């Protein structure tokens, strides 16, 4: 197969978590795909729905407990017990967001707009919506549709397509 024939044409990305790092991994990969001319379809499910829920999308946190890679500025270990103190998680999350902003990484709603501006499509999982008692009105306006997993798989066919679970 030549380089041209084997080039990636479509990515279907599934995001099931609602913390900053997993949501941004999803958004960066989806945006990176459309920027390269690769079709991107993103399916948000379970806690990942926070990323496309109007009320929550710009208030995501990163977890400061149970995260062994979490370090203090300067590289010292970050004790789990410290992370459990009220307000620490919010502070760390705010710090992470300001560092991302400095690298020109936008807030979640703006990032989603960048993806849809490039033709990327955003979907929500029906089962998780039912579970969290969410309606289409709770979701970001540009969510294309609420889908069953079967509907989503139906979109993931075709040559040179990859499904990515972040």
């Amino acid at each position, binding site marked *: 197969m030549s380089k041209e024939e084997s080039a990636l044409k479509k990515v279907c990305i599934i995001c099931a978590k609602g913390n900053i790092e997993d949501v941004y991994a999803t958004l*960066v990969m989806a*945006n*990176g795909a*459309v*920027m*390269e*001319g690769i079709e991107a379809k993103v399916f948000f499910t379970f806690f990942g729905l926070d990323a496309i829920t109007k009320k929550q999308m710009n208030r995501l946190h990163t977890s400061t407990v149970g995260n062994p890679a979490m370090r203090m500025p300067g590289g010292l270990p970050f004790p789990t017990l410290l992370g459990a103190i009220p307000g620490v998680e919010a502070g760390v999350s705010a710090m992470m967001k300001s560092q991302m902003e400095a*690298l*020109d*990484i*936008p807030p979640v709603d*703006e990032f989603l*707009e*960048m993806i849809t*501006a*490039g*033709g990327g499509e955003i979907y929500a999982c029906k089962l998780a919506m039912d579970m969290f008692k969410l309606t289409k009105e709770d979701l970001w306006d540009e969510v294309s549709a609420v889908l069953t997993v079967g509907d989503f798989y139906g979109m993931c066919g075709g040559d040179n397509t990859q499904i990515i679970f972040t």
Partner: protein
Amino acid sequence: MGQMELGNTMVDVNDEGYLTDASQWNKDVANAIAKEIGIELTDKHFEVLEYLRQKHTEGEVLTIRKVGKSGIVDIKGLYKLFPGGPLKYSSKIAGIPKPASCV
């Protein structure tokens, strides 16, 4: 690395066809690169290209977000101008290095 004739100008390019010396760029070179990609350049394209070149000279890391906030074109418009590679193709046509950013 090699030399290539684009729009009657000899320019230095890398393996991917990006100019290695941005000062060798002119409008004919831009038109020639755009033609290879399959884009017909308009005045709007050149406004974007001039903006990219200016930011490159100032040493800024370019992102589509920055171009979207430049006041020249929004992100949707940028995709329309340079389909399939809003930052990659525009940088190539502007004669500046391949963007090294992930956003």
